[in-house]
């Protein structure tokens, strides 16, 4: 049996679990109010079409149908004041054509909404959608990044280019050019980051409820970002921000796909406000391919210049990135989040990065677990394996030769990308992973199989990643032209009865914040974690916050909680000193109790002081009643977790089937609050990244039609496809925050795609295979074994 309460470092069971294990919790689709209307979305069935006419009469005549609105009608109703927002215009001249919640004249991807039905029930809304007749004038679709870059077709007919922006980061162009002048070894590699469907198991959904008496609207949304949503809905619709309340109830996974401002959210709020009735919608899984943004979608070009020993002299990378049809909340910023990581964990003297963002007639892209960083890690970690091959040394040795500070402990290292890495200690982390993997034995087994022609080839791949998390120092975000800050807010209050209420601005959707935040309070304040309740995910309870994404919750939000707790302790200390008639400087605070140094017999517990602060009968002169403090923590720097992942695959020479047979991950996310939760995050992340390497791809035909939008064809792995994973840790505290924590939410995904593909390519190296596109399907692998090329 595990602990049910505890402080920092305890693998404590989660407080969230009982409700989730008994069906008591509420996801959006579980919540109903009287008189609610169901939205049904009429979605464009073509990737690019002008809307000639829409006949809604058939749908309007159907039972239970309240009304049907076309995009034109909605525009005329003036429900919104601005298009859907993009908060990250990465350059001043970035193209950002308007993205309306419902298309008015032209639809630019399959799934874009062209009309909305409102009906009394889910089924009636779905029926009515089928009876809206839309006449289209079909246009040529731009169905891939290559087409966007190379063809004359335009994703937006009114633009004369598909290129939305060019962004670059070349801190020292001369040094970069010098590094690439006649290098002893020159790696030139191109990789494709295929589009992925995030596929959180809970589909997105909304329920907007107008208050009958006033102008207030409550929006329940399956979102990671209620606070950001509130600001953005106010800005987009013109509704007064203080009249909006956003609630993210139980949210069934997000992975970035629930951090947007979506057409359905705007529609639900504005229609509920206009009609005075509750309005709801839940996407179907197949619909989600067009109604929820997708991830990745990049063509990567990377080059490494190295000396004869494999010591890297320079790295340069260029991306062509698929924005999809429109810029959503942070669409153009996703590749930039990765830009700083194309140097990986290596000491790279010269660095350059550039990115062109292109519009296509496909579902918009945006953040997906890792957001830019798994892509970066993939490119450098695949490329360094290629460099190892050129130099003629092993993948472990090439890494050792290039680690920052020779693999020894460092703090506050300035990378060529201009970022300051908080802390790292790479060599022992690699050693530990190779030891757990029994690397030498694996290599021997591989050699044995190669010799004997065993039928199943073994592949061993590694990835030593670093990632940027703890998003983000507000100033750094400002420097990147991002439209918001990166702080997090927390309030800690000691209630009169000695219980602690924590209000957090970060918004969990599976991460276990209630548990972890309670643990931080337990350690800081010396109370039982059972005495702590965490309020979150409701802008009325938690008015200030910047939510959950980018592995930021602990490194920013958790730190804010810890700091607010310290402020509560400081105030409580003044009350205790007053009661003891002693100077606060003479007091010590141990395990929740204040006592005068040297006389521990006389003490008062902080939980007893809640009542004194509440009655305020006898507080120090001038002190305000109540024991409550708040902190907005703006981190001085990002945090940089790192780790070594080793993947072992078996490839069937007859079928080309790849089986992931073992996976070893030694991660360093700094200090851990709840190791059980950290491990769970890694497991999930690893499988998500391995899924990109082996199974998942959103496939579009040449006309921009999604060919595998449902779970029938989009291969989210099941338990049968993956092995038990071996996880372990090193601990290098972060210097970016007082808790020394880094972040673990995305690490698994950032390490695993590269580790798995390095293993696949390693297995196929006897066949002369040097690279392979993801996912490594049996067909691709088999063909590569026949012809060498992928």
């Amino acid at each position, binding site marked *: 049996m595990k602990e049910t309460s505890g402080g920092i470092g305890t693998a404590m069971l989660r407080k969230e*679990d009982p409700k989730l294990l008994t069906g008591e919790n509420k996801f959006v689709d579980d919540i109903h109010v009287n008189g609610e209307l169901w939205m049904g979305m009429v979605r464009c069935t073509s990737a690019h079409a002008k809307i000639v006419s829409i006949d809604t009469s058939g749908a309007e005549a159907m039972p239970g149908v309240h009304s049907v609105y076309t995009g034109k009608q909605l525009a005329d109703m003036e429900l919104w004041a601005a298009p859907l927002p993009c908060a990250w215009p990465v350059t001043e001249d970035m193209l950002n054509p308007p993205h309306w919640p419902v298309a008015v004249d032209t639809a630019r991807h399959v799934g874009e909404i062209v009309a909305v039905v409102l009906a009394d029930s889910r089924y009636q809304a779905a029926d009515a959608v089928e009876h809206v007749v839309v006449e289209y004038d079909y246009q040529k679709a731009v169905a891939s990044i290559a087409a966007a870059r190379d063809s004359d077709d335009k994703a937006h007919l009114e633009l004369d280019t598909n290129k939305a922006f060019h962004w670059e980061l070349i801190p020292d162009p001369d040094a970069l050019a010098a590094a690439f002048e006649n290098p002893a070894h020159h790696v030139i590699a191109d990789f494709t980051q295929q589009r992925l469907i995030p596929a959180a198991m809970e589909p997105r959904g909304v329920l907007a409820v107008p208050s009958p008496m006033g102008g207030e609207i409550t929006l329940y949304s399956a979102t990671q970002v209620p606070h950001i949503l509130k600001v953005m809905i106010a800005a987009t619709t013109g509704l007064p921000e203080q009249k909006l309340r956003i609630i993210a109830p139980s949210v069934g996974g997000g992975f970035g796909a629930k951090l947007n401002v979506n057409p359905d959210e705007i529609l639900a709020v504005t229609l509920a406000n206009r009609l005075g009735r509750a309005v709801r919608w839940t996407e179907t899984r197949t619909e989600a391919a067009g109604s929820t943004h997708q991830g990745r979608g990049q063509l990567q070009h990377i080059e490494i210049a190295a000396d004869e020993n494999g010591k890297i002299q320079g790295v340069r990378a260029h991306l062509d990135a698929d924005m999809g049809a429109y810029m959503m909340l942070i669409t153009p910023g996703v590749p930039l989040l990765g830009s700083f990581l194309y140097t990986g964990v290596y000491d790279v003297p010269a660095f350059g990065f550039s990115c062109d963002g292109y519009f296509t007639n496909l579902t918009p892209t945006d953040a997906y677990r890792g957001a830019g960083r798994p892509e970066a890690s993939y490119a450098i970690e695949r490329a360094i394996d290629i460099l190892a091959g050129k130099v003629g040394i092993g993948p472990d040795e090439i890494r050792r030769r290039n680690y920052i500070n020779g693999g020894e402990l460092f703090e506050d290292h300035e990378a060529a990308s201009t970022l300051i890495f908080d802390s790292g200690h790479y060599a022992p982390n690699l050693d530990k992973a190779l030891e757990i993997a029994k690397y030498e034995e694996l290599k021997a087994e591989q050699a044995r199989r190669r010799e004997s022609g065993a039928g199943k080839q073994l592949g061993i791949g590694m990835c030593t990643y670093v990632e940027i998390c703890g998003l983000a120092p507000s100033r750094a975000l400002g420097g990147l032209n991002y439209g918001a800050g990166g702080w997090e807010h927390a309030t800690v209050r000691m209630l009169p009865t000695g219980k602690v209420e924590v209000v957090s601005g970060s918004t969990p959707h599976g991460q276990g914040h209630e548990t972890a935040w309670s643990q931080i309070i337990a350690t800081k304040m010396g109370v039982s974690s059972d005495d702590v309740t965490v309020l979150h995910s409701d802008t009325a309870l938690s008015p200030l916050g910047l939510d959950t994404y980018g592995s930021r919750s602990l490194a920013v939000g958790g730190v804010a909680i810890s700091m607010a707790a310290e402020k509560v302790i400081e105030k409580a200390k003044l009350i205790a000193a007053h009661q003891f008639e002693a100077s606060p400087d003479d007091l010590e605070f141990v395990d929740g109790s204040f006592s005068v140094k040297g006389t521990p017999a006389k003490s008062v517990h902080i939980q007893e002081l809640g009542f004194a602060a509440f009655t305020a009968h006898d507080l120090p002169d001038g002190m305000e009643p109540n024991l409550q403090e708040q902190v907005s923590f703006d981190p001085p720097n990002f945090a940089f977790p790192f780790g070594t992942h080793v993947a072992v695959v078996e490839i069937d020479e007859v079928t080309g089937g790849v089986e992931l047979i073992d996976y070893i991950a030694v991660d360093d996310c700094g200090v851990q609050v709840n190791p059980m939760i950290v491990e769970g995050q890694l497991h999930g992340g690893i499988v998500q990244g391995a899924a990109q390497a082996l199974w998942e791809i959103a496939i579009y035909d040449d006309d921009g039609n999604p060919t595998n939008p449902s779970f029938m064809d989009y291969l989210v792995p099941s338990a049968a496809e993956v092995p038990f994973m071996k996880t372990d840790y090193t601990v290098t505290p972060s210097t970016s925050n007082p808790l020394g924590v880094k972040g673990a939410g995305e690490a698994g995904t950032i390490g695993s795609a590269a580790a798995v593909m390095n293993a696949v390519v390693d297995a196929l190296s006897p066949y002369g295979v040097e690279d392979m596109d993801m996912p490594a399907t049996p067909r691709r692998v088999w063909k590569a074994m026949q012809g060498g090329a992928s």
Partner: protein
Amino acid sequence: MEVSMTVNGSARSADVEPRTLLVHHLREELELTGTNVGCDTSSCGACTVHIDGRSVKSCTMLAVQAEGAAITTIEGLADTARANGSSTGEMDWHPMQEAFQQCHALQCGYCTPGMVMAATSLLGEKPNPTETEVREGLEGNLCRCTGYHNIVKAVLSTTGGAS
């Protein structure tokens, strides 16, 4: 159409449209929202319930096809275990619910009700499964959060076969 069934031990009758899916009937008419919907192609298993003791994806059948059936949903699982004396732990839950918490086999919890129902039914058919049998037995239930590691561990732990 009138349809009657026993749900979590209580007789429940309702007038439903013939095309109503069982999962929507359970969730919307009977207000048992613990059973979730994760897809529209019978692929994810979030909707798994027990019908006459066997696990069924409740999105694959109509409510009217469950006429006369005895259905257990996640809300009724612990009661069922209590009734037959197999409940465990402080929470007095079904051993599988207990194991899921102990092994941290859930994160967002969306797949969890279906996963727990599928796992209990798997053990009903195969009381001492191997790791491979657990993995293959749960193939119809998708989870995006856990990587399945702790789910498989939880299921094996209830049979004494935990790693």
